[in-house]
């Protein structure tokens, strides 16, 4: 039985109700059009800004993305790169707006300069992130991938598997405090509906040439796998509101290891992330 017939049989389809149904249908059609426009706008990620261009992670990410996106890099210091480059300290000012102007998404690697101390690291992950996100909002950028770390999750009982539902327990000694504060900053922009944010909490990033001992750490990841995860996130960002669960989503990302405390099931299931470099199940 069709809905209209059912309502007539039930005696509910009076003139006013018909009007209401018509209104609802018109509204649904309008919603559908809006969704269509959004989907169309959402799928338009073509140009991506990658921050902390001086870092290995940013280089690996740019190399992964440049086949599919126009990549712009930014850093507080000059960096030689075949990609477009804008020097910016992510200060509060026009320079940061220039860095983000015209891009569709930002990959915020958020790695401070190599000799930075704790305080500089916190400043970079909070103040500079805030400036970057404010500039993004002002310039109409909708989506951010923020690279965080699993260090903030290490405080829980070692016998537990810790997924994205667990409360972060960052301590100053763990090194995860600044990453956490950066997440906190991003989260408020997502909560207010100003940006779509995907957080990738990375395991300990270990270079390709690292020793077997380093790589045996269950929560490690190769920079090329980080880049792959970023690429997966960018691919899914267009549908983030519907498919990923709103404007704010967190994913744990490591190499796959059966002994890992930090399962990557969510990243596999939703982002389609598959680690390629080392750490595979035997």
């Amino acid at each position: 039985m069709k809905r209209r017939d059912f309502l007539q049989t039930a005696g509910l389809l009076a003139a006013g109700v018909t009007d209401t149904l018509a209104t609802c249908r018109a509204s649904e059609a309008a919603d559908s059009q809006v969704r269509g426009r959004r989907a169309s706008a959402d799928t338009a990620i073509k140009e991506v800004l990658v921050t902390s261009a001086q870092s290995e992670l940013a280089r690996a990410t740019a190399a992964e993305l440049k086949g599919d996106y126009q990549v712009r890099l930014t850093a507080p210091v000059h960096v030689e790169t075949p990609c477009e480059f804008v020097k910016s300290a992510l200060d509060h000012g026009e320079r940061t707006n220039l860095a983000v102007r015209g891009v569709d998404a930002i990959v915020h690697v958020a790695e401070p300069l190599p000799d930075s101390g704790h305080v500089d690291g916190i400043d970079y992950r909070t103040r500079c992130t805030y400036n970057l996100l404010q500039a993004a909002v002002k310039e109409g950028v909708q989506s951010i991938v923020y690279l965080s770390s699993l260090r903030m999750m290490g405080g829980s009982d070692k016998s537990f598997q810790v997924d994205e539902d667990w409360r972060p327990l960052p301590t100053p000694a763990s090194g995860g405090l600044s990453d956490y504060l950066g997440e906190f900053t991003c989260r408020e922009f997502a909560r207010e509906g100003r940006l779509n944010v995907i957080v990738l909490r990375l395991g300990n990033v270990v270079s390709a040439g690292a020793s077997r001992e380093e790589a045996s750490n269950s929560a490690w990841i190769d920079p090329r796998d980080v880049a792959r995860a970023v690429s997966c996130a960018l691919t899914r960002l267009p549908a983030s509101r519907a498919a990923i669960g709103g404007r704010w989503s967190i994913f744990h990302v490591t190499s796959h290891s059966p002994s890992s405390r930090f399962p990557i099931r969510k990243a596999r299931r939703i982002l389609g992330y598959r680690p390629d470099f080392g750490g595979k199940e035997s």
Partner: protein
Amino acid sequence: MNVLLIGANGYLGPHVVKALAPHHHLRITDIKAAPPEIKRDFAGHEFMDVDVTSEGQVMEAAKGMDAIINLSVVRRDPVLSFRVNTLGCYNVMRAAVKRRIRRIINTGPHFTVAGPGYERFDHAISPDVPPHPGTGLYPLTKSLGQEICRSFTLSHDIYVQDYLFYSFRDAAQLRSGGGGVPFVVSWTDAADVFRLGLQIAPARLPSRCEVFFICADSPQEKFLNDKAKQVLGFAPKDDVSLLWRKKR
């Protein structure tokens, strides 16, 4: 008790100095000089120039102290708000660890935890809600500072009380029909809570990091001060409900 006051020469600081001076030895610090009457009336206490953004200065000022009260704040400057409200807390907590100071009182605005996402929608808002400061510079930087304090208490035997305020009034300003935001406290009641916070045995605090709304009873019941009353024994003397009574 030897108490270090940081940012003590702003609006609230001089009231806190008056409330604590009879009970404790104070080291009164700020980047700006203390008001002349404070220097005159409390000459038996110490005065120092301390910039909370300087780890070295905070570390030096914390020598020999038993407690730190951080009253420092910058509200609008896009660089200094982070340096003072966020990194200032880091410097204070580092100094507390190094100087083995277990008692910290941090301060901020109510939207350190209860930003527009709560304030616009809810009533009976408790200080124990998950922090939603929003993206405003002042609330966010203060909230980040509070998160830094909390992170230190996870791994150190330090007790942080975070006192959150909104609107202050002179008792004489509390007149019928005055109106205003429903989160008000008189300067003297606000200052007195610091005395209570220094009195309480750390073991009586529910955890090593506790947030309190410091406001008097308001008839709207938008923000709850029950926790400050129950845990600290806060008993505001000035009746702010007058502000919302009809004028006679």
